[in-house]
């Protein structure tokens, strides 16, 4: 058989086009098995037609495969194929979700941290304000005490100890009298708190004749911390006394309630 002439006849092109009878097809199939040149020729004809028709395809057909498989209901149960598809899908999906979760958790953590820090800052600010108040208090306290110390050290100060009288022998007080500014500082630490309805009253006395002049009541005695009271005194006092009087004070001292008394020793 003249293979070349057979090939040149054009029958193989018709074979690929599907234009031959069953008998002719069968013959060519057998010839292809016997003669590799014929097979090769058929493959090239087929390849040229496939190439040409593929170039006529208006779009990618890859995505249609899954649709076809879905319609054929295959692929869903095939572990091998699905696993590849699924693995890719799952890998991407899980990674995506994992990333989202991590970012989300990180965000929550950061927010939480931020909140905690804000609370801490606010705590610290409260603490700071509290400490500032304490410092201010301490400063004030110190100023008061320095003032007091200055007063007591003043050259013009006359110190008058007031001793316990009669039934009140345990009581005592001290008067620091600054004549230059007409005021006294009464240190009444040695007196008990005034009972309910009563009040301590301070008296300036002249001795000959004995004349008491009220310097006023100490209404805030019980609540005062250092029991030192600054009282105006323009009198030429010769002695100071303190009596317990009914609330509001009295015109004249109740002598049986005279707790302390001290005479000014003239310089």
């Amino acid at each position, binding site marked *: 058989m003249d293979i070349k002439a057979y090939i*040149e*006849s*054009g*029958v193989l*092109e*018709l*074979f*690929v*086009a*599907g*234009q*031959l009878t*069953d008998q002719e*097809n*069968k013959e060519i*199939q057998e010839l292809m098995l016997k003669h590799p040149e014929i097979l090769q020729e*058929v493959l*090239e*004809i*087929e*390849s*040229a*037609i*496939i*190439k*040409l*028709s*593929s*170039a*006529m*395809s*208006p*779009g*990618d*057909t890859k995505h*249609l*495969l899954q*649709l*076809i*498989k879905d*319609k*054929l209901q*295959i*692929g869903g149960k*095939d572990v*091998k*194929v699905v696993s590849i598809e699924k693995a890719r899908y799952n890998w991407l999906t899980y990674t995506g979700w994992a990333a989202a979760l991590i970012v989300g958790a990180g965000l929550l953590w950061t927010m939480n941290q931020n909140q905690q820090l804000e609370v801490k800052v606010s705590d610290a600010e409260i603490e700071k304000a509290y400490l500032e108040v304490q410092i201010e208090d301490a400063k004030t306290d110190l100023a008061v005490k320095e003032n007091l110390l200055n007063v007591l050290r003043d050259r013009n100060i006359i110190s008058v100890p007031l001793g316990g009288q009669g039934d009140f022998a345990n009581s005592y007080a001290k008067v620091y009298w600054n004549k230059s500014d007409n005021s006294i500082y009464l240190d009444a630490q040695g007196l008990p708190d005034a009972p309910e309805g009563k009040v301590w009253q301070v008296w300036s006395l002249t001795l000959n004749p004995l004349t008491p002049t009220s310097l006023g009541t100490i209404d805030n005695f019980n609540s005062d911390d250092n029991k030192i009271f600054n009282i105006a005194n323009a009198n030429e006092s010769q002695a100071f006394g303190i009596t317990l009087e009914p609330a509001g004070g009295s015109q004249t001292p109740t002598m049986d309630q005279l707790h302390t008394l001290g005479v000014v020793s003239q310089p």
Partner: protein
Amino acid sequence: MELDLLVSNFQKKDEKAFEKLYNMYSNSMHGVIYNIVRDHEIAEEVMQDVFIKAWHKADTYNSSKGRFFTWILNIARNAAIDKTRSKAFKNSGKNLNAEFFVDILETSENLNDKMDAIGIGTYVKALGEKCKAIIEYLYFKGFTQKETSEELDIPLGTIKTRNRNCIKDLRAMVLE
């Protein structure tokens, strides 16, 4: 031979084999179908039908009757032509008086094969008009030799050799 094994596995409903055959022929079938229906959506629809049909009718294929490509090409052509004869298709007013496949190559939107298509299109234009017609009728429309000879007014006896020469030219253009 590898193709025989593939086809044989496909006939045994092997999904892998089906996928491989799909990858080998789907673009080609898509082109053939589109050439006939000239509508993207309909072409995709017919494409699916063709491979579904091939799957169900796999056992009717026999290598002694011809190439597997020829078999599936036949299914595709018939399915596409059936579609153009359907009432719905006719009502859609599609203009099928388009030129032969050549114009598709010039307007192909298939990006993957764009370079290919442009390249092939350039060459294929150089094919003789009779050649384009013969290829169109014999391969893409499924006309018989007799119908082709009548349509082109070429003696039946020369269709074979004319076709041989046309395919030779085509091979020289598209195969390296």
